[in-house]
């Protein structure tokens, strides 16, 4: 986090985001286009999953970034509570709905994939349940941060919640190892290298990068909006 301290002031963040956003937007659009073509046309159907394997190109990046997003939320919460960074609160406010949306995308694509593969949209195994809890934790964070007339109070309360709730992230990650789940265990990040054929692994990694770019882009844009909102509110109070 120390390297990010230079962004702590909203004004400096604004100059940074103004410089970065045009390039980031173009890169994201290009990455999405390439990813669509690669995932839908070039990548071969899986020998077991058939065409449904293409759902994984959305499901895996969405769920991974949903979890990473909550870790980011906890880090922002810590930096708000410890260093009182004004920007951390704004960025957390911007991040939570994006993370919640990624979580929802992960849940929906997982259900759509589960229907043809497992024969059911939903099972109450440890991975799916703990991931559903992540969605509720995001909702709690969003609701709590917006529940106070004094925005600062909401930010700090939500920061404490993020720090407590982050314990769920390792539980999700290791749920497939700790319990007997219908959800398959890790196949990319594991000892002995990934167990996926390159023709499918490469577009998957590409989509991972694409979803990360999109996540960063959305966080930056929404943080900018939050800065504007705070300034407007301050201006309204002043008049």
């Amino acid at each position: 986090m120390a390297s990010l301290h230079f962004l702590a002031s909203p004004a400096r963040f604004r100059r940074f985001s103004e410089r970065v956003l045009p390039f980031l937007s173009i890169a994201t659009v290009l990455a999405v286009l390439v990813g669509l073509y690669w995932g839908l046309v070039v990548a071969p159907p899986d020998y077991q999953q058939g065409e449904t394997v293409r759902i994984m190109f959305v499901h895996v990046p969405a769920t991974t970034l949903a979890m990473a997003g909550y870790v980011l939320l906890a880090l922002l919460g810590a930096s708000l509570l410890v260093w009182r960074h004004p920007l951390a609160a704004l960025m957390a406010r911007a991040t939570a709905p994006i993370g919640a949306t990624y979580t929802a995308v992960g849940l929906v694509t997982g259900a759509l994939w589960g229907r043809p593969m497992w024969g059911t949209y939903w099972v109450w195994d440890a991975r799916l349940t703990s991931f559903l809890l992540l969605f509720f934790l995001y909702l709690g964070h969003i609701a709590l941060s917006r529940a106070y007339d004094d925005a600062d109070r909401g930010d700090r309360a939500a920061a404490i919640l993020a720090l407590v709730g982050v314990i769920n992230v390792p539980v999700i990650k290791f749920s497939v190892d700790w319990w007997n789940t219908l959800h398959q265990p890790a196949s990319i990040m594991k000892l002995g290298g990934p167990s996926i054929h390159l023709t499918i692994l490469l577009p998957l990694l590409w989509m991972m990068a694409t979803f990360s770019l999109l996540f960063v882009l959305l966080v930056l844009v929404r943080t900018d909006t939050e800065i504007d909102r705070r300034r407007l509110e301050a201006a309204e109070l002043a008049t």
Partner: protein
Amino acid sequence: MIALVALFQRDLRLMLRRPADIVVVLAFFIVATALFPLGIGPEQNLLARIAAGILWCAALFAALLSLDRLFASDYEDGALDLLLLAPGALELAALAKCTAHWIVTGLPLAVLAPLLGLAFGLDEGALAAVAATLLVGTPTLSLIGGLAAALTLGARRSGALLALLALPLNVPTLIFGSSAIEAVTTGMGFAVHLAILAALALIALATLPWAIAAALRQAGE
């Protein structure tokens, strides 16, 4: 330490002076549990199978009911500001208040639940498991509930928000609590489940007082 004991006694006395608040929680627990046989139908085998989950869920909801007053009355009459100013750790004060809450809700629920289990046709072993799991599990519920109550102090729609925050965090306790009872009814021991419940309670005991104190501090600012 003396101040802490005094705080604990004060909270307990305040709660006991309004026995209606405690009775309402227990009455809710009984009514909510009684609704399930009426809604599902009186088939004895089915009820005995799902009794564990029903009792635990109803206990979870009942424990939520009294939480909104846990810190709110102190917040409104200014006692919380004095607690914040007082020498001594706020963490321990938070722990004292959660303990008082547990004594007037978790403990009676654990005593009452086996009686309700009788109505669901649970055998003696399962009844003992109901009491044991609730006894070990409800402290965690009080601590997590205490955190949710502290976080939502002075918020709009704080009651609904409190439930939204506390219920997801209570899920691990619920899962291991009800699966312990189910393990007994299917003929296995429940020592492992009970040990996990105790571990959850200890983790909550070791970490949550700090989180509650942090939440109270930012509420007092």
